[in-house]
């Protein structure tokens, strides 16, 4: 019994990898044939970012059972630190891909570190209160980045958090200048690196879920008190999931930031956090493949409906509400189970008739 369960999990993980790899190969093939329109090519990197963000948030919300409403904050940290590092390394590291990867690792590490520091006080809270505090942190992060100045001048590296733009010594330039954000970013992100990041994320998250620690995390989610009473150190595991999630969000943020020519802090607001959460919930809590698919579909859906202009977001909202009603409502579930039972019954009868 136990063995079959494990095998089932493995099969599902394998399917997840397979879907991602096949999708990548198809997209690469189509783009090498020049069959993709420029609009579709433009979606590729952001879709990769949102897939990674959805998977990392799913680790927190679906697997760990902790509602976080500040995921965009970590994405923002990763995006700005990654962009700043990539700009600083412009002359020292020639290879663009290497620079991108360095920026992603730096962005992820910084986000993970800040996640750890935030986690120490915050993870004492639970449920809706944790959600509110993460929301608050996301807003604080956005507010601070919006007033942050990073640059270089003749006195070396400059960093300031200030309400007004500080003066530079001699010749120099601000890379990140407060509410203006960063402009003139050299675009480094590629679909291949995005694909690599997705594989890395899948590897980290799936291994974590299937490890001893992952089972402990799920035990904490399902019944915290019971898990605590059998000796699982609840805080340590929650912290691990929180830091890993922040780290991956930071990497995705760096990839996202280096895909555009300009970037400002307002992008990483509450709405972005909520969008990622919507991907996770519609994809299925704890279901990694579900996150991959829903992030892709739900990112492209509003973009593809641009032709409907003003109506597209209203349609998106209605679709969102209807999907939630149809997938969660007990009445609808009851109805579908009745229909499924009848179908089964019908098939049985047919089989019996065929046997006779």
């Amino acid at each position, binding site marked *: 019994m136990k063995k079959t369960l494990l095998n089932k999990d493995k099969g599902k993980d394998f399917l997840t990898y397979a879907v991602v790899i096949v999708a990548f190969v198809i997209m690469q093939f189509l783009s090498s044939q020049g069959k993709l329109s420029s609009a579709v090519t433009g979606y590729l990197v952001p879709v990769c970012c949102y897939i990674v963000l959805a998977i990392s948030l799913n680790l927190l919300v679906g697997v760990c059972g902790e509602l976080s409403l500040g995921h965009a904050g970590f994405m923002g940290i990763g995006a700005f630190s990654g962009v700043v590092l990539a700009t600083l390394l412009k002359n020292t590291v020639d290879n663009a891909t290497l620079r991108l990867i360095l920026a992603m690792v730096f962005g992820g590490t910084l986000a993970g570190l800040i996640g750890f520091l935030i986690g120490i006080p915050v993870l004492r*809270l639970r449920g809706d209160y944790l959600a509110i505090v993460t929301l608050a942190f996301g807003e604080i992060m956005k507010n601070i980045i919006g007033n942050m100045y990073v640059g270089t001048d003749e006195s070396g590296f400059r960093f300031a958090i200030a309400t007004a733009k500080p003066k530079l010594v001699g010749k120099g330039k601000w890379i990140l200048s407060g509410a203006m954000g960063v402009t003139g970013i050299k675009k480094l992100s590629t679909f291949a690196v995005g694909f690599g990041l997705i594989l890395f994320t899948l590897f980290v998250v799936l291994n974590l879920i299937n490890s001893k620690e992952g089972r402990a995390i799920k035990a904490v989610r399902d019944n915290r008190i019971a898990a605590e009473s059998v000796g699982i150190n609840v805080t340590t595991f929650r912290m691990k999931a929180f830091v890993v999630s922040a780290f991956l969000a930071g990497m995705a943020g760096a990839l996202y930031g280096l895909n555009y020519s300009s970037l400002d802090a307002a992008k990483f607001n509450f709405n972005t956090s909520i969008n990622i959460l919507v991907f996770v919930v519609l994809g299925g809590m704890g279901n990694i493949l579900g996150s991959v698919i829903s992030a892709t579909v739900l990112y492209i859906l509003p973009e593809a409906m641009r032709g409907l202009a003003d109506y597209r977001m209203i349609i998106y909202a209605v679709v969102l509400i209807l999907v939630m009603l149809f997938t*969660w*409502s007990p009445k*609808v579930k009851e109805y579908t189970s009745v229909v499924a039972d009848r179908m089964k019954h019908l098939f049985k009868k047919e089989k019996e008739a065929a046997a006779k």
Partner: protein
Amino acid sequence: MNILQYLINGISIGSVYAIIALGYTMVYGIAKMLNFAHGDVIMVGAYICYCVTVYLGLPVLAGVLLSMVVCTVLGITIEGLAYKPLRGTPSLAVLITAIGVSYFLQNAAQLIWSSNPKSFTSIVSNMKPLHLFGSLTITGEVIVTVAVSVVIMIGLTWFTSSTRIGKSMRAVSEDRDAAQLMGINVNRTISITFAIGSALAAVAGVLMCSSIPVLMPTTGSMPGIRAFTAAVFGGIGSIPGAMLGGILLGIIETFAKAYLSTQFSDAIVFGVLIIILLVKPAGLLGKQVQEKV
């Protein structure tokens, strides 16, 4: 004298937050859901009042009353169509639905009234500001806002403690199953809570736009989040907590803007919220519920 002026302004903003926070806290207490669409009901309320007074040319009082009626109907409709079918499901499912409703309201408003900001005429434009002790100015908006919120708070306290429906609301928020066994119609009680919360949101919308006269489809979202913070601040689910939280938040925000920094006011307000929650995890007046094994 400055400090007194800031205090008065803070109380005025805080009163609006308190009225919005009451809607959040009542719904949370009874339906155990974070109703993120509440902020957008505020916006709808303000638009209705704007339309009635500007397009139809009716008096202000009619505008306020009509916007309360429309918002009440809207609240009941949203609850019946979007939230009621999901009763008993995990709170996250309802949260996402609420977000869907919020998107819907914002975009519907954008279709109807376009995204160009409208300048809202204050409902107390004919009242002259009071000048006290020379430098202290109290505008008509401040007086009306504070007076209305005091009336609402007293009325709501009386309503929940003395009337039959109010008592059943408290019973449902205490223990839904037990209340049902006692013969309370839980579904109807929840609908009434939404109705009251939405009517208050309409009032808050009109008061808010009288002080800050910019009306856009996204007008409600930031005050909504602020007021939600206020509700948590005071202890979500607690009615006196929402009032206290709202007013304190308004005062903190005004003082932070005046004495520390305008740009960092968000960070300061949310920072204070985090500190409060770390010291008192259930908010200022919230009840700490012991988990039973």
